[in-house]
């Protein structure tokens, strides 16, 4: 799947699995019992439906019970810290009735794993998990059939524990998975699909399990793309312009003669050097003089919001109902506000990296990518070779957050390797990471709402620029409403508003960032809801409860309020703030307590409670870690993070001037989940982060009276707002 397509999906709510390619992996595997599981789109949507017609060439998951009794689980998903290496093994182990520690996860290898559209959008637990459960249930039934035959008993007389099948009333009569699979290679797929377990039968699902990859990560043994060392490998360094979007005019490499063993790569837009010594490659790259055609800046950090509103005049109505004119007429109070959110960097601790080599015509590559199969296709296109001639291998990823779906570094590494004929390692510098990041776009949200004398919202008019519609379906009951999306794509395309022909309205690269625009729109909506509550003199919790029209959201908010103890007394200078949001099928309610120093404008988060309705929680511990992580990361965009730029010249290029959240600003965080073990599991990687901005902004207002309409809520903006207040 192309990155542009993923971007499009990322900014919208994805509520169905991504369709699959046909692949054939089975001959590459060794012995044992291989279970291929095929499931159609429809049954996945129904969640737990079964009995689809089978098609061995088009399958979503498979696993292999090996001759030693261990189980390989093959999935196209990757592990980047979100914990699915543990939770997917957990659901498999529960269905198959083996120890979770007997499961080996084979992830994101394009030769071994079934196709996957990529690890993004909090899709894994919603769409990969049910398929793996179903495959494991199928494997369990196949193993029971084989055991029944061997032990000469009926299948119903058998039971399984920790990979051993035994006769219920005669436990000494038994056979292990290893004994069943020894010397066999059986590929099977059942025509009648067994039912997956109900929650009452779960042994592992719902239990808290520590990450199974923690041991390899605390010992330094876990390998990332830049940790691969190959014989004869050279290090590549790409020569970059100072300004994003610059085009190469001329290259002067005359100064390279002072470096022994250096090779210049100068092909198309790519200028790079390679050397077998990393630091010599880095030094030499600085000596290559490239003349660039640099685009003139059209906007900067402060003018960007007006720029977006000026440039984008086309819109689509995303949702509407009732009549805004009537809504306006029946409102007692009308409030019109404008919210801004700047560009945000992904800033994963691991910069984009790739290591690769050619084996004849075939490329073998390890890359920090969230989309191994997408990368395979990009590489095949870039190198003009067949898909089968590209092998993307399994590797850990040092954080992605939506930023590692574009794969620019991997394509550069492959082109350089092809050009110089040697194995290549390319690790972007931190400066390159900021420069070539695909930032969460700057966004504008214009909102006008009306409320009647009873405190019921009567009108909602919401215009979104560059934040997409993901998560903007209203969970407040408002009869007269309209949500419009002013989309930059309308500017890029054939639209009559195409003022900047074929140019993005953004001067820098933009893309998906952990629940992307839902962070911006949730900040705007929840800040505005608070503003209205304040204006009519209602408690923000009571106002929300009065206006919610979504049972799960109401219950989630009540759970958060109870856990937080909303009605407790506030200390001097402290404030409480609520934000609600919906993302990837999960309802989120966050309540924060902050202290604001009115003299300095400094904010100290004191406490954060996050309640979620995420359906069935597979690994409560893992879900808690993800939620804490999302909140901790979210404090960065809420309080500090802002990409500063003039045109394509990105000025924030290191952690000194692009400040992410640190230890000292991370408060006590409490995560609670609604108990829904019988429900379908929903997304967990992204949802919590969307509420952090709004909840912090609202708490800052409650503490200090400063209403900040632009993310991040910096000390400077708080002081400015206090002056106006």
């Amino acid at each position, binding site marked *: 799947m192309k990155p542009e397509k993923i971007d499009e999906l990322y900014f919208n709510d994805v509520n169905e699995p991504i369709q699959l390619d046909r692949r054939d992996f089975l001959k590459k595997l060794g012995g044992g019992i291989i279970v291929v599981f095929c499931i159609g789109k429809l049954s996945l949507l129904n969640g737990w439906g079964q009995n689809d017609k089978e098609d061995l060439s088009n399958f979503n998951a498979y696993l292999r019970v090996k001759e030693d009794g261990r189980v390989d689980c093959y999935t196209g998903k990757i592990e980047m*810290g979100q914990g699915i290496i543990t939770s997917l093994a957990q659901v498999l182990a529960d269905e198959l009735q083996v120890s979770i520690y007997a499961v080996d996860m084979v992830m994101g290898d394009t030769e071994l794993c079934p196709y996957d559209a990529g690890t993004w959008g909090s899709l894994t637990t919603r769409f990969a998990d049910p398929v793996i459960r179903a495959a494991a249930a199928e494997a369990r039934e196949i193993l029971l059939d084989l055991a029944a035959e061997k032990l000469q008993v009926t299948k119903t007389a058998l039971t399984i524990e920790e990979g051993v099948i035994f006769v219920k009333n005669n436990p000494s009569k038994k056979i292990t998975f290893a004994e069943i699979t020894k010397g066999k290679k059986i590929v099977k797929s059942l025509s009648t699909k067994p039912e997956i377990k109900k929650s009452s039968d779960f042994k592992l699902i719902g239990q808290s399990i520590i990450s199974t990859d923690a041991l390899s*990560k605390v*010992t*330094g043994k876990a390998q*990332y793309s830049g940790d691969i060392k190959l014989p004869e490998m050279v290090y590549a360094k790409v020569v970059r312009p100072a300004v994003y979007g610059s085009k190469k005019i001329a290259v002067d490499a005359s100064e390279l003669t002072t470096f022994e063993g250096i090779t210049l790569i100068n092909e198309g837009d790519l200028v790079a050097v390679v050397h077998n010594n990393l630091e010599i490659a880095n030094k030499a790259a600085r000596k290559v003089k490239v003349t660039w055609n640099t685009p003139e800046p059209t906007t900067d950090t402060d003018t960007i919001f007006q720029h977006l509103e000026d440039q984008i005049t086309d819109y689509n109505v995303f949702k509407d109902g009732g009549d805004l004119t009537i809504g306006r007429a029946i409102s007692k109070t009308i409030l019109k506000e404008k919210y801004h959110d700047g560009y945000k960097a992904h800033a994963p601790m691991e910069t984009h990296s790739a290591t690769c080599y050619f084996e004849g015509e075939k490329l073998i590559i390890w890359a920090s990518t969230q989309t191994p199969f997408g990368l395979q296709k990009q590489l095949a296109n870039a190198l003009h070779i067949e898909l089968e001639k590209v092998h993307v291998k399994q590797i*850990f990823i040092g*954080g992605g957050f939506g930023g590692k779906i574009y794969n620019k570094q991997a394509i550069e590494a492959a082109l350089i390797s092809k050009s110089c004929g040697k194995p290549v390692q390319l690790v972007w510098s931190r400066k390159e990471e900021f420069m070539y990041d695909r930032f969460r776009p700057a966004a504008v949200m214009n909102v006008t709402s009306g409320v009647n004398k009873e405190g019921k919202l009567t009108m909602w008019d919401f215009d979104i620029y560059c934040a997409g519609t993901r998560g903007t379906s209203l969970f407040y009951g408002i009869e007269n409403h309209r949500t419009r999306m002013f989309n930059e794509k309308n500017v890029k395309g054939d639209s009559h508003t195409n003022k900047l022909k074929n140019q993005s309205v953004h001067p820098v690269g933009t893309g998906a960032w952990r629940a992307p625009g839902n962070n911006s729109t949730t900040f705007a909506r929840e800040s505005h809801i608070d503003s209205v509550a304040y204006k009519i003199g209602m408690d923000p919790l009571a106002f929300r409860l009065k206006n919610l029209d979504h049972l799960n959201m109401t219950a989630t908010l009540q759970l958060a309020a109870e856990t937080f103890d909303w009605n407790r007394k506030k200390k001097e200078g402290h404030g409480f703030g609520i934000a609600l949001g919906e993302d990837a099928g999960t309802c989120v309610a966050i309540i924060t307590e902050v202290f604001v120093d009115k003299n300095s404008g400094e904010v100290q988060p004191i406490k954060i409670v996050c309640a979620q309705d995420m359906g069935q929680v597979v690994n409560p511990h893992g879900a808690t870690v993800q939620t804490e992580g999302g909140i901790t990361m979210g404090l960065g965009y809420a309080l500090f993070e802002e990409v500063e730029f003039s045109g394509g010249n990105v000025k924030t290029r290191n952690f000194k001037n692009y400040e992410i*959240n640190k230890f000292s600003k991370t408060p006590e965080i409490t995560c609670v989940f609604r108990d829904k073990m019988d429900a379908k599991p929903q997304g967990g990687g992204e949802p919590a982060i969307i509420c952090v901005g709004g909840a912090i902004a609202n708490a800052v207002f409650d503490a200090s009276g400063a209403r900040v309409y632009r993310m991040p809520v910096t000390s400077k903006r708080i002081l400015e707002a206090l002056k106006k207040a």
Partner: protein
Amino acid sequence: MKQSISFTLNGKPVTVEVEGNESLLTVIREYLDKTGTKFGCGLGDCGACTVVINNEALRSCMLAVEDVVNKTILTIEGLEENGNLHPLQKAFVEKDALQCGFCTPGMIMNAYGLLLKNPTPTRNEVINGMEENLCRCGSYNRIVEAIQLAGIEMNKNF
């Protein structure tokens, strides 16, 4: 200037041929293939490359290799003793104080240096000592808990 440089790495003497003025991080990762120590920024801003030199936690990306002649360097690979995890490693696993794991070696080595100076740090002392090590996944609270837990365990052993 090309030269041979000797130091002790994880308890073993090593001598390495260098070009001169390389960062210690490059020497550890690319010359000696100890890739547990990570490159995060190359500017001393993130702490992913932290190692312990003569009992002090320092950023290997900011040190020239010439600065460590005859010194004793400990990296994440040298923490285990006789196949047993160090209490810090155990505590990081127990508290699951990591996600993507990329900052983890630097966090653990910085914490190692911190506990050498202050074996029983308070929560605030841990935060102050760890403040300049960055974790984008957001495991800070768990890291603080893990370090305090390790401190308690290490004091028991003495």
